[in-house]
C-alpha cells in the first residue's frame, strides 16, 4: 500500500535541482524510443547538444528560438500565479503580431527610436486586449477561462488568416497569404549581421527582470499573488480580486503579444499564419518547468529551445523523426509535475506483511 505524507518544508536547493533532475530523467525516458529506432541514445544526445550549443551559429539559433518562449513563458507564469488559466497565449501571440503589422508596416512614418517602441506597444496592447475579454467574462460571469481562452485561439487564428487574405495582405507577395512587410524603421535590429538573433532577446530578458521585480516588490504583484494563493482571504482583506485578475490578464496578454511582435519585427519581417510553431502552448510548458518563477522562465525557455533546435539538427543527421523534441519536452513537463508532487509529499510504501491479511486487505 502507498501512503502519502505531506512534507513540512522543502529546501531551496531542491526547488532548483528538481527541474534539472526532471529534464535528465526525461532524456533517459526518451532514450527508449531512440533505441527502438535503432540509434545509440548517447550519439543522438551528443548530436542534439552539438546542434543546440555547438558553435556560434547553433547557439544563436537556440537563443533566437528561446526569445519568444521567454515572453510566452512569462505570460503564462504571470497568469498562473494569479490562478488565471490563460491557455490563449497562442492567440494573444498572433494578435500581438497583427498589432505590430498594423503599427509597423508603413501606416506611421517615424524614426526608429519612436516607431520601434510604438510597434511594441501596439503588439502588447493587442495581446492584452485579447486576454482582457476572457478575464472580464471570468470576473463578471464566472465563465471558465480555460475554455474561453483556448477556443479564442482558433477564432484569432482564423481572423489572422482572413486579415492575411484581406486587409493586411501584401499586394507584392504574388498571392501568398502574408502581410505587408514591417518597415525598416520598425524592425528590431539584429545583434549581428551573420546570425538571426535580434534585440528581441534583450527585450525578453528585461521583461523577465521586470516581471520578477513587479511580483516581488510592488503592491500589484503582492495583490496578484495573494489572489492566486487564496482569493477569499484576499477579498476579505480588501484586495479587489477582479482588479488583480484583470491586471494579471492584461500583463499576461501583453507579454504574449510582445512575443508576437518579436517574431514579426525581429525575425521574419512580415506576418504569416504559420509564424508560430506553437510558441503560445510551449510557453505554458516553459512556465511550468520554471515553477512559475520569472527568472527560471529564462532557463526553461533556453532548455526547451535547445531541445527543439538540437532535435532538428539531430534528426537530419540520424533520420530520426524530429517529433522526438515534442516527446522530450512533454516528458520533461510530466517529470517536473511528478517531481513537484514528490517535493510536496513523502511517499512511503507500507508493506502488506506488516498487516494481517485475514481480515481483507485494502490497497
Amino acid at each position, binding site marked *: 500500500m502507498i501512503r502519502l505524507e505531506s512534507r*513540512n*518544508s522543502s529546501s531551496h536547493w531542491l526547488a532548483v535541482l528538481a527541474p534539472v533532475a526532471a529534464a535528465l530523467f526525461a532524456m533517459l525516458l526518451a532514450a527508449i524510443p531512440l533505441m527502438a529506432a535503432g540509434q545509440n541514445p548517447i550519439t543522438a544526445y551528443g548530436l542534439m547538444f552539438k546542434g543546440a550549443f555547438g558553435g556560434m551559429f547553433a547557439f544563436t539559433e537556440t537563443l533566437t528560438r528561446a526569445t519568444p518562449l521567454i515572453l510566452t513563458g512569462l505570460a503564462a507564469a504571470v497568469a498562473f500565479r494569479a490562478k488565471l488559466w490563460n491557455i490563449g497565449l497562442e492567440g494573444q501571440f498572433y494578435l500581438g503580431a497583427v498589432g505590430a503589422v498594423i503599427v509597423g508596416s508603413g501606416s506611421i512614418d517615424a524614426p526608429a527610436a519612436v516607431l520601434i517602441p510604438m510597434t511594441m506597444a501596439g503588439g502588447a496592447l493587442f495581446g492584452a486586449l485579447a486576454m482582457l475579454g476572457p478575464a472580464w467574462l471570468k470576473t463578471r460571469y464566472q465563465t471558465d477561462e480555460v475554455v474561453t481562452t483556448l477556443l479564442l485561439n482558433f477564432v484569432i487564428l482564423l481572423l489572422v488568416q482572413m486579415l492575411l487574405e484581406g486587409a493586411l495582405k501584401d499586394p507584392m507577395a504574388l498571392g501568398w497569404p502574408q502581410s505587408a512587410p514591417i518597415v525598416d524603421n520598425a524592425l528590431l535590429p539584429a545583434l549581428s549581421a551573420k546570425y538571426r538573433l535580434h534585440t528581441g532577446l534583450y527585450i525578453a530578458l528585461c521583461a523577465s527582470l521586470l516581471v520578477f521585480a513587479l511580483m516581488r*516588490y*510592488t*503592491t*500589484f504583484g*503582492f*495583490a496578484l*499573488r*495573494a489572489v492566486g*494563493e*487564496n482569493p*477569499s*482571504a*484576499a*477579498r*476579505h*482583506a*480588501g*484586495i479587489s480580486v477582479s482588479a488583480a485578475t484583470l491586471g494579471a490578464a492584461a500583463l499576461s496578454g501583453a507579454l504574449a503579444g510582445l512575443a508576437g511582435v518579436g517574431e514579426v519585427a525581429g525575425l521574419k519581417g512580415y506576418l504569416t499564419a504559420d509564424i508560430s510553431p506553437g510558441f503560445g502552448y510551449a510557453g505554458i510548458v516553459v512556465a511550468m518547468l520554471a515553477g512559475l518563477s520569472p527568472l527560471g522562465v529564462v532557463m526553461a525557455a533556453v532548455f526547451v529551445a535547445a531541445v527543439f533546435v538540437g532535435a532538428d539538427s539531430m534528426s537530419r543527421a540520424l533520420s530520426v523523426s524530429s517529433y522526438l523534441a515534442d516527446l522530450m519536452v512533454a516528458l520533461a513537463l510530466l517529470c517536473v509535475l511528478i517531481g513537484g508532487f514528490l517535493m510536496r509529499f513523502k511517499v512511503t510504501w*507500507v508493506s502488506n506483511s*506488516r*498487516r*494481517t491479511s*485475514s*481480515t*481483507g*486487505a*485494502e490497497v
Partner: protein
Amino acid sequence: MSDHNKNNTSELPATKTQSTPPAEAPVLLELRNIGKRFGETIANECIDLTLRKGEVVALLGENGAGKTTLMSILFGHYVADQGSIHTADANGVLQPLPPGNPQAALAARIGMVHQHFTLAENLSGFENILLGSEKLWLPARGRAALRARVEAQMAESGLHVSLDERVSNLTVGERQRIEILKALAHNTQVLVLDEPTAVLTPQEAEGLYKTVALLASRGLAVIFISHKLHEVLAASHRIVVLRRGRLVGELTTANASKDQIAEMMVGHEVPRTERGEATVGEPVLQLLDVSLESSQQRQRLQHVTLTVRRGEVVGVAGVSGNGQAGLADLISGLALPSSGKLLIDGEEVQRTGPRHLMARGVARIPEDRHHQGVVASMNIRENLMIESLDDARFQRFGVIKAAASRSHAIEQIDAYDVRCEGPDAVVGQLSGGNMQKLILARALDQEPLLILASQPARGLDIGAQTDVYRRLLEARKRGAGVVLISEDLDELFTLSDRIVVLHDGELTEAGASDEIDRREVGLLMAGQGSNHQQSTQESAL
C-alpha cells in the same frame, strides 16, 4: 428536537443521570503503551487506556494533545510505533487488533462518529446507515430484514429519526443521530464520538448526553472526545486527560471539578477571564431593520435591528448557518443590506468594500482563519500588511517598503507573542493559536472602533484562547465596540455584556449576559423562544 426541550433543568451541564458502571465490568478495549511520533513531534507516548462495558470515558485534551492521533491508531488509519490494542471478541476474550487496518477495527465492533459528518446528502438516512457495510441494491426481502434491524436499533437506543427522509432535509441533530445509528449498525461494542456537540444547540447536546447514557446502560462502551469541560462533566463516568501526547491524568467524573480538569489539560492553573465593568459610549454599529437576500440560507437576514456601542461586547449566539455569515459579510464590507440601513459610527454605509469599512475603523477576525484570515503560503510580514496595501506606511507609488514592513512585522510578532521563526516564516506553518495571534495583531493594530470577532477562539487551546479573550477585552476597555459571533455559550457568557440570538436569519435580543441563563439562550438558538417552533426543520427543506 422538541422532545428533549420539555424537561426544565435550569443549568445545562446538569444531566448527570449516569449510574456508575460496576468497576469489575468486563474489559472491551485495552490500549497498551501506545506510542507514535511524526518526525520530531511526539503525538502519543506510553498511553494506556482501558474501557469497560457500560462505561463512558471522556478523552479530554487541548488541540494537538494527541486525541485524534490516538483514535486514528485505534481505527487503523495510523500504525503505532509501539504498543498494542486489544479488543474483546465474541466470547469476551481480549484479542490483539491488527494495526493499520480499518477493516479489522470494524470487525472488532468499534464504531466511530466523526466530527465532520460523512453522510451522502442525496441518500435517505436508511441508505446512509447501510452505506459502506451493506449493499444498497438488495432484494426487497433482504432490505426489509435490514430495515427491521435498524428500527430495532432505533428503538433500543432511543435515537429516533425519520429513516426515509433525504439527509439533505434533516437538521444537524438528526444527521448526527443517523451517524450514530450508522456507527452502531454492525453490532458495535465500542463507540467513539469525536467532538460530537460542536454543531449542536445546547438542547440537542443535552439530548445527546442522554442518548450516550442510555447506550452505556445497554452495555456499550463509549469514548467521548471533547475539549469542552462542561460537557465532559455532563456526559462521562471517567475522564482521561491528554497533554502533549501523554496521558496526564485520570479522574472519576463524580469527583472532578472544572478548574482541576482545566489545570490538568493546560499543565498550570488557568487564569479566569474577568470582564470588568463596561463604560458604554456612543453607538458604533447600528443595523436598522436590515434584511439581506441571498440564495444561501447561511447568509440570509430578516429585519435585523441591532445596536453596538463603544465599550461593550455584544455576543451573537446561534447555531452556525442561521445568518451569521450574512451578518459578518455586512460588517466586513463584503455585502450591503438589501433593505434597511447599516450605520458605522453614525454614518450610513453605502458601498461595499472591506477597505472602505476598515478606513472607518472596522477590524475583522474572520470565522475561518485558513480560508479568510490568512494567505497560508505567504509569509508573516506579507500577511500583516495585506489589509493595508494602500497604506503609506507600507508602500510608495506601488513599490513595497520592504524594510518598513519588516520592522513592523518584527514589532507585531513581539507585541503579540507570535511564536515563529521570524517575519519571513510562512504562515501556513504556524499553529492555529499563533495564526490567530497574527490576525489579532493585524486587526487591532490601528486601534479600531468596532471589532467583528467570528468564532475567535474556535479550535484554539486554552492558553491561546485566554490570550484572545484578553486582547478583545482590552480593546473593549479602550472603547471599541465588539461584535462576538459564537456558538460557544461559555465564550459568549464570558465575554459578552449583552447577548442576542440569531435563528433563521432573525435576531432576538436575549438580554444582559448577567441577567439571563443559558437555558433561555439555548431555547432562542433552537428557535423556540419566539413563535416559530418548527422553523429549523422548515428551513432545512
